[in-house]
């Protein structure tokens, strides 16, 4: 009984460990193939001009895009939250909308508008416009929660406003900036469609091409190994930069909203920056899609696969979301109720796995399935399993915060009133957690609706999700035919994006796990 108390119910532990160990498959596979391939072959595959070129492209993309996104995100967040920007509330919502437009759809919108786009700067432009909200959103949330009296202290010490921002505000924004930047970096590494559209080669686009030409070949696997290494470098780098910092507000004083600063002569420039961001990140892709939709007319919507694709997408997303939430629950429960080193390791595995490009996870599952359980190959079970590993942290993060908010006294009260522990848990605690579970499921849903790369690689023949149909139309240069699929993906994503926005009002860690 005592052991039960301290370590948690055995069934829960077994489930949590099972899910978490499944997450070791991709990493294990990469290591396994590296060993099997052998040093000399591997070296020949890795040390060649093509890999150097890919490395240059990928690193350049990350090194240029991430700081740009961080700067734009912080500037936009400050303008929306702290300045007398005209229409700040509306811009506050509009700047989150890019999250509802998948990067490959944004890319399609831009290529439609400017067909000559290619090369690294186009990649930076498109990816930057797609991903800057991942910094904007947590930084805006953090800015709202900063204690204004700390900035007033600095002012009373004779420090001018801009210096206050640099010396006091910015350091306190370090964690949301780092967190958002890491997520952007990981997205840049794993994005396929957006860069394939402008024929800009990164590791991920190269791996997909390799895989399609030589299925499960050592070349693709070697590239995947390098990609995984870059990912791990980012993860370690971010955690190192994060250090032991914890900038909790110290006092207990009632939070009062910070005063907005008058922009004065900078007002036109600020207005231009924010409006420009919205026009470039939302206006351009929406306008392009609109243009193709008009061109296609009513006939464009009579695509015989459209309804089927919508149904399949919703089906996959719903099943994936529910499965992910259920399997995330044991880990979240252990993390909140029985915290300890083992549980932390299990949780970390799920984070690292989901940080790896979905493409690598997909490759690993294909290979393992073919070798060990061929019956699973080309089934939707495999697809859902990859979705699970890709999006598990979205569910865990939300379930954790939900579970942490349940006052433990309430469940104990139910037990003192004669309810069996299991009954008390499910009738009392589960009800409290439901909203968080729904939020987590919604984010998984969003992820699956806009997922392209792994679905392309894994999906059984005949699978037609919106993303896959969109992609095949685009590859046939049928931009008109692709437009309804793009529009439906955005429409499906909008409500969840709004949910993200609403949660960012209260939750600083809103983008964790995205």
């Amino acid at each position, binding site marked *: 009984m005592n052991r039960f108390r301290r370590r948690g119910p055995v069934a829960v532990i077994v489930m949590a460990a099972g899910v978490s160990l499944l997450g070791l498959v991709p990493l294990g596979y990469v290591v396994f193939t590296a060993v099997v391939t052998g040093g000399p072959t591997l070296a020949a595959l890795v040390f060649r001009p093509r890999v150097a070129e890919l490395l240059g492209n990928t690193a350049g993309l990350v090194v240029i895009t991430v700081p740009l996104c961080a700067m734009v995100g912080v500037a936009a967040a400050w303008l929306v939250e702290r300045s007398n920007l005209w229409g700040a509330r509306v811009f506050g919502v509009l700047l989150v909308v890019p999250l509802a437009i998948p990067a490959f759809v944004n890319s399609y919108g831009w290529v439609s508008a400017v067909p000559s786009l290619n090369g690294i700067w186009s990649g930076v432009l498109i990816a930057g416009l797609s991903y800057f909200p991942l910094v904007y959103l947590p930084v805006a949330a953090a800015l709202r929660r900063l204690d204004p009296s700390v900035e007033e202290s600095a*002012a*009373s010490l004779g420090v001018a406003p801009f210096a206050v921002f640099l010396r006091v505000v910015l350091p306190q924004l370090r964690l949301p900036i780092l967190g958002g930047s890491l997520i952007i970096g990981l997205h840049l590494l794993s994005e396929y469609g957006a860069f394939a559209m402008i024929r800009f080669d990164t590791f991920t686009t190269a791996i997909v091409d390799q895989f399609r030409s030589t299925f499960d070949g050592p070349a693709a696997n070697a590239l995947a190994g390098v990609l995984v290494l870059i990912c791990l470098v980012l993860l370690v780098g971010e955690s190192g930069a994060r250090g032991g910092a914890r900038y909790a507000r110290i*006092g207990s004083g009632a939070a009062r909203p910070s005063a907005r600063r008058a922009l004065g002569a900078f007002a036109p420039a600020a207005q231009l920056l924010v409006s420009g961001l919205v026009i470039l990140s939302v206006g351009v892709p929406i306008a392009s899609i609109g243009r193709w939709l008009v061109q296609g007319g009513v006939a464009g919507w009579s695509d015989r696969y459209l309804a089927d694709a919508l149904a399949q997408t919703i089906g996959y997303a719903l099943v994936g979301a529910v499965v992910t939430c259920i399997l995330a629950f044991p880990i979240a429960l252990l993390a909140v109720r029985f915290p300890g080193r083992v549980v932390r390791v299990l949780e970390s595995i799920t984070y690292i796995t989901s940080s790896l490009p979905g493409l690598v996870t997909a490759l690993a599952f294909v290979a393992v399935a073919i070798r060990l359980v061929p019956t699973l190959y080309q089934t939707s079970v495999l697809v859902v399993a990859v979705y699970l590993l890709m999006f598990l942290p979205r569910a865990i993060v939300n379930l954790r915060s939900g579970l942490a908010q349940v006052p433990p006294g309430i469940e104990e009260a139910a037990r003192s009133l004669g309810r069996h522990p299991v009954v008390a848990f499910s009738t009392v605690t589960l009800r409290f957690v439901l909203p968080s579970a729904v939020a987590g499921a919604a984010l998984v849903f969003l992820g699956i609706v806009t997922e392209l790369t792994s679905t392309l690689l894994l999906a059984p023949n005949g699978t037609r999700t919106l993303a896959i149909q969109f992609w095949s139309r685009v590859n046939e240069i049928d931009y008109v035919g692709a437009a309804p699929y793009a529009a439906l993906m955005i429409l499906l994503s909008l409500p969840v994006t709004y949910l993200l926005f609403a949660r960012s009002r209260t939750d600083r860690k809103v983008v964790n796990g995205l």
Partner: protein
Amino acid sequence: MRRTEPGDVELRAIGKSYGGTPVLDSIDLTVPAGSKTVIVGSSGSGKTTLLRLLSGFDFPDAGTIRIGKDTVAGPGVAIPAHRRGIGHVSQDGALFPHLTVRDNVAFGLDRHQRSERMTTVSELLELVSLDAGLADRRPDELSGGQQQRVALARAMARKPRVMLLDEPFSSLDTGLRSATRDLVSEALSAAGITTVLVTHDRAEALTFGDQVAMLRDGRLAQVGTPTAMYSMPTDLATARFLGDVIVIEALASGGRVECALGIVAQSTSLDGPCLAMFRPEQLRVGRLTAGADDGGCIARIIGLEYQGATRLLTLDVPGSVPLEVPVTGDTRYLVGDRVSLRPTTEAVIFPTGRAGASSPTP
């Protein structure tokens, strides 16, 4: 803009409203150079707003504020906080969470000063009685009292002309509160810095400053020395705010005031029903001894509450509602005993029925 000379502070006809609701109305106040003034009031009285106007975090709608020789706010003038040469300590200290104690204290020093900052910081920490070993800690590793003292050291580092304290002790535990308050008061006196403290705590109001300003509903109800404010309040609400009161209905005629305790005042401009106010320590309870008359009236004990050092007697006084009077020393009183009750000073007389008279003590 850094000043080493303490400056006096003058507010003239200050008015401020938020969204049409007036918060401050025609405030006139002078704080002499090097002195300490406490602005006291209940929450919502506008005291924090007044301090924010002095700090330069907000600006008045009307009136002028002068610090030393400089008008810092007024028609066409709005000097922001960072150019006022002030020090400010807020309720929870507002230390920079990302900096060590040393860097917090040195934050306001310019580069030239920063070269000597090691010694400056140690001196400042010593001034507020903090161990120099704390210099490398982060704010969240300090107790509340330590945080407040770091905040004060940080504000004093620039030798401000005026120190503004916004309820800096209210978040501390009772024992720590008075100790920190005394220490801060001494440090500021030693440095000779003009100080304005805002508080809702009566003990703080009476012990901290040379001058007390009572703020109520956005207006200054009374300004004076702590002694004058306590013993000669100009209205009952101020009297209640600054200490316990015993109020007896009385009647004024021909300049004299009479109540159940006898004649309690010899000169008043009032005529007719009024209220006589005593502080509890101004009423003396004595044993009735046969044959001796100490001049008091005779009361009967109808209630008795043990309070440790004192006992609170509820006395039935003929012609009055029961009065609650604390006694110390003699512990042999019993319910039903008859005692004598005698004022030791004249009462403070207030008119009845004034709006302020019946307002509850905060």
